[in-house]
């Protein structure tokens, strides 16, 4: 119970109510006290007046009768007085205070036992007062009146209880109102508490109601101000965070793009690397066959007994393979020069028909007779590097022959434009995929299908061809459709 009480007392409401309670209590206590005291005094005064009134009447009556020694009258007066309400005793005393006449017969003849009541008379049951009986300045005796205070006291009690009850009711009413008032006082505080909680929860737009122009109203204003500031701050921070996030995002985006670019570069580098090592093995392979043949046949010619026909055949093979080696080596040297940009052309006058014929001748040593030279003899002369242009044709033809089916013919034709000559090589091979058509002139590119995997080739031929054509100021391209063959064309400016 104690802890419960102390808990209440420590609340604002509790303190408030306790204070009001204490004040009310004190006030009421004082009021009651006051009222009671006043009432007592009032009543008391009234009774004293009555006693005095009765006393003075008796004084006169008895005074008269004592003179005349009319005992019966005195007794009658006493009797009559006793009939008055609240009179408890009437005694007539002589000058020696001996009772001569009394409403209480047993007192007659004895000294008066009752002394007058003093100030605290209200606490006694009977109020005694003695009056002097005098006649013409003669002191005849006394009359003592005993006045019963029972009724007064009863009245006082009744009044006291009445007051008490009223005061208690008032007290309760006031407490009730005090309680309601604290409620209404505290309501804005409680509301503000809710608002504060909501603000703490992140809602900066909420505002407390300002219902008065006092301290509580000011508190509400302050709270609202704080909420507003927090809101602004939060918005600021949010904006900054958003901005930072945006920056981060765009930074990230850029990073991502860079990473993608890097990955692409990496991939290309790796690709190139793989192609290079493939190249190295292919180059060595390409060079080895002619070498094998040259050395082999040379040895054969030296060690075996051969027919004249065989001898001639083998010597021709040696020559052709030697030339092939030369071509291959020239190719490799050229690609290096093209890459380094140091390719220097040996310019002369080139007759296109002869050029094509010589290029075709290069292949005549093989079993295929599939090159159809449709460039007429009268065809235009071109200023260019004959040897290299021949190599361009040889490279293109090599491709066409290598990848084309065995029985089809490769057709070479030319046409003359205003400023340039365009040579076209048409084959009926497997054609080139659309996605590869752009890459086919790339160094090392060899396509990625079954055919290229099995054939020999370094992937340089077309790259070199294009490089040489470009060095002349011309261009090179391919038209092809899968399954329908390809047409490789290049243009050479007529006047270099």
């Amino acid at each position, binding site marked *: 119970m104690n802890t419960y009480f102390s808990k209440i007392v420590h609340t604002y409401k509790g303190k408030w109510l306790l204070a009001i309670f204490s004040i009310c209590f004190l006030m009421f206590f004082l009021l009651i006290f006051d009222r009671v005291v006043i009432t007592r005094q009032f009543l008391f005064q009234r009774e004293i007046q009555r006693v005095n009134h009765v006393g003075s009447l008796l004084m006169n009556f008895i005074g008269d009768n004592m003179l005349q020694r009319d005992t019966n009258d005195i007794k009658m007066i006493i009797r009559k007085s006793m009939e008055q309400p609240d009179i408890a005793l009437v005694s007539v005393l002589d000058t020696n205070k001996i009772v001569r006449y009394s409403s209480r017969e047993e007192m007659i003849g004895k000294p008066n036992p009752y002394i007058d009541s003093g100030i605290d008379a209200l606490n006694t049951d009977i109020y005694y007062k003695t009056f002097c009986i005098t006649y013409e300045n003669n002191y005849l005796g006394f009359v003592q009146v005993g006045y019963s205070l029972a009724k007064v006291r009863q009245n006082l009690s009744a009044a006291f209880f009445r007051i008490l009850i009223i005061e208690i009711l008032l007290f309760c009413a006031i407490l009730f109102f005090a309680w309601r008032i604290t409620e209404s006082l505290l309501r804005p505080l409680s509301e503000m508490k809710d608002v504060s909680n909501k603000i703490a929860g992140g809602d900066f737009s909420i505002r407390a109601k300002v219902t008065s122009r006092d301290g509580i109203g000011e508190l509400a204003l302050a709270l609202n101000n704080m909420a507003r500031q927090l809101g602004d701050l939060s918005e600021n921070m949010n904006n900054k965070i958003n901005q930072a996030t945006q920056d981060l995002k765009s930074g990230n985006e850029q990073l991502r793009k860079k990473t993608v670019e890097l990955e692409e570069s990496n991939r290309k580098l790796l690709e190139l690397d793989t192609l290079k090592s493939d190249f190295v093995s292919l180059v060595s392979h390409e060079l080895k066959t002619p070498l094998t043949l040259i*050395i082999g046949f040379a040895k054969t010619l030296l060690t075996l007994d051969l027919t004249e026909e065989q001898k001639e055949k083998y010597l021709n093979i040696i020559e052709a393979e030697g030339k092939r080696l030369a071509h291959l080596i020239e190719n490799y040297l050229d690609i290096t020069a093209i890459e380094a940009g140091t390719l220097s052309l040996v310019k002369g006058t080139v007759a296109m028909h002869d050029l094509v014929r010589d290029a075709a001748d290069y292949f005549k040593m093989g079993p295929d007779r599939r090159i159809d030279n449709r460039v007429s003899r009268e065809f235009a002369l071109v200023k260019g590097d004959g040897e290299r242009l021949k190599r361009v044709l040889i490279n293109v033809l090599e491709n066409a022959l290598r990848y084309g089916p065995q029985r089809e013919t490769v057709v070479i034709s030319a046409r003359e434009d205003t400023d340039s000559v365009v040579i076209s090589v048409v084959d009926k091979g497997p054609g080139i995929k659309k996605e590869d058509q752009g890459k086919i002139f790339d160094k090392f590119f060899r396509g990625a299908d079954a055919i290229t995997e099995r054939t020999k080739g370094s992937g340089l031929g077309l790259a070199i061809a294009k490089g040489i054509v470009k060095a002349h100021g011309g261009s090179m391209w391919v038209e092809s459709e899968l399954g329908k063959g390809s047409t490789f064309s290049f243009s050479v400016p007529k006047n270099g």
Partner: protein
Amino acid sequence: MGGHSILIIDDDPNIVELLSVNLLASGYDVNAAVDGKDAQAKIMRRPPELIVLDIMMPEMDGWELCKWIRDDPFLKDVKIIMLTAKGTEKDKLIGREILQADEYMTKPFDIDELKKNVERLLHA
């Protein structure tokens, strides 16, 4: 003159010529095929005792052909010499089952060495 039968499988006719002329001079019975299909046909008709096989060929890889030969129980006694180029081929070589072929020669090869290997394999 009858003798051991050798089949040369290479798409380059010059190589075929080179090998044929030399092996014939050594007294062998020499046949040639220019690609895998041709080779298979000829092997089925008359299984040779020794095959000289080039790895790089159009349409049928030398390895494939080798495996085909090895898988056939009737051809288990056929000797195989494989011609390869140096470089990654050799690496592939090590990766594969080395028991496929009986001998490996890298280009450019010495014709005499080839003859010696043939000799050794057929008279072992």
